[in-house]
């Protein structure tokens, strides 16, 4: 007698310990095997684009902070890059260097959360707390700079809200030798752990062609073995003055483009960010950081698409100006939004436990997906 079986639909989220916020995944299951994944998003749709139309250009910056709340500095960086391109203004060198330092510190902080929560998703809770302990150090650096821990409103159009604190350079220099051994510690604790490798290697393989077709960018694209980094391939700010490598996935533990590769690219990138910070601190010029801030931001009629390499990938701002003080339209090309759309492609044929591994490895932030 044939046994009657049917597929089961399992809802994961919006409240679920491992969805990194309020994401709902509709899993079509056959036993524990995934037949399809349908992400439902919008549970954190905070109407950013509507707000941007109602605010003046500088007023948008606090809202930009709240898009990808794990890398606020970089969101501001991207936004002001776009507006400055539209205005056609040059900013002082010191401002650019400070922006790069802040951006790279933010990249480390963001990757730490990504790595920590990834470990926690896979059941290893201790690396999560270790990552947060080290992230706390970076946050205290931000705090002496601008007074905020998470959402900074620090990078302004044409300049910065404050100059660096007199102690900042010393503290940042102290941070680098403190943090280097911690990366090794994380590798010993998590990256090369046999169980961790078993869980992540050969899981959720993303071939480079698929990745490009889906528009995936950032560490996820580099995890697929493609050397593509906007800091190198489409340089902005002063990134062309630094010497750093672009780590790519090599398939050391399994196939190129699996979860372990995506994870490990982030570990390697933290190392590279440290290098950039070191060089930027050495070359940091003197000067005024507020001199180029325009009194009134009123760009001419026109449009611009500017992009930067956010910790999660290509963060693009498409701004249309109608010549008034408010932007006519701001569209954010959010890297996580694109990364999440690959879920279905990655998960099919894997098991429930792998959905968690894959979701953690593409490192999404819901604030940015839903905007």
């Amino acid at each position, binding site marked *: 007698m044939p046994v009657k079986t049917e597929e089961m639909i399992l809802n994961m989220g*919006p*409240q*679920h*310990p491992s969805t990194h*916020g*309020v994401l709902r995944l509709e899993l079509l299951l056959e036993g524990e095997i995934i037949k399809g994944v349908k992400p439902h998003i*919008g*549970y*954190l*749709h*905070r*109407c950013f684009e*509507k*707000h941007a139309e*109602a605010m003046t250009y500088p007023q948008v910056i*606090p*809202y930009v902070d*709240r898009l990808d*709340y*794990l890398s606020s500095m970089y969101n501001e960086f991207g936004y002001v890059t776009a507006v400055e391109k539209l205005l056609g203004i040059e900013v002082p060198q010191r401002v650019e260097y400070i922006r790069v330092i802040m951006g790279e510190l933010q990249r480390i902080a963001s990757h730490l*959360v990504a790595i920590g929560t990834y470990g926690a998703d896979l059941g290893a809770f201790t690396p*999560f*707390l*270790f990552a*947060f*302990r080290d*992230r*706390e150090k970076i*946050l205290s650096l931000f705090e002496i700079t601008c007074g905020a*821990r*998470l*959402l900074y409103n620090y990078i302004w159009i044409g300049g910065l809200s404050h100059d660096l604190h007199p102690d900042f350079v010393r503290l940042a220099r102290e941070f680098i030798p403190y943090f280097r051994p911690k990366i090794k510690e994380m590798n010993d604790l998590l990256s090369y752990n046999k169980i961790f490798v078993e869980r992540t290697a050969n899981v959720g393989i993303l071939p480079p062609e698929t990745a490009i077709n889906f528009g995936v960018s950032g560490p996820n694209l580099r995890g697929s073995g493609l050397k593509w980094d906007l800091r190198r391939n489409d340089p902005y700010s002063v990134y062309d003055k630094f010497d750093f490598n672009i780590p790519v996935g090599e398939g050391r533990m399994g196939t190129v483009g699996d979860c372990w590769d995506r994870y490990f690219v982030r570990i390697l990138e933290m190392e590279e960010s440290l290098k950039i910070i070191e060089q930027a601190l050495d070359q940091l010029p003197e000067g005024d950081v507020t001199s180029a801030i325009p009194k009134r931001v009123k760009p001419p009629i026109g449009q611009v698409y500017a992009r930067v390499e956010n910790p999660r990938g290509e963060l693009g701002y498409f701004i249309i100006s109608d010549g008034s003080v408010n932007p006519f339209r701001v569209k954010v090309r959010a890297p996580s939004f694109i990364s999440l759309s690959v879920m279905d492609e990655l998960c099919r044929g894997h098991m429930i436990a792998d959905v968690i591994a894959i979701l953690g490895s593409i490192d999404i932030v*819901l*604030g940015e997906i*839903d905007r």
Partner: protein
Amino acid sequence: MGLLDKQFTDDNIIITKVEDVLNWARLSSLWQMGFGLACCAIEMMATSASHYDFDRFGVIPRPSPRQSDVIIISGTVTLKMAIRIKRLYEQMPDPKYVISMGSCSNCGGPYWEHGYHVLKGVDRVIPVDVYVPGCPPRPEALLEGLLKLQEKIRNESLVKKTA
């Protein structure tokens, strides 16, 4: 709670002592629902992590609403999410408490005017015990909010209605 208000018209010593013990148990083991919404959730995670350590107060995250005592609404509540939050709250067993963390869940925060999809204050769907202001509140502020909640529980009574 007012469960026994027909039997005892006034506080007597036994009831008060029992009350103290029960309140003490409730306030020292507030299990938090592991549930984050937006930016504030990151600060909430930081509060649970090494530096600030929520566990000192007996707060541990529980994944299931059935086993949690306090839900921290940490972030912007959208209309789409509000329905789910209400359901989560209803799934929690009594006695249950709500901490509204951050401006967004207090009143809509920066999204109060043009946020066509933002609920202006989570208190429009569920009752809130403690509001923690800030955007986002620092971990210290959340700890203070927790202490305020403990204060509130300490003064609860079996006999008299408190809420």
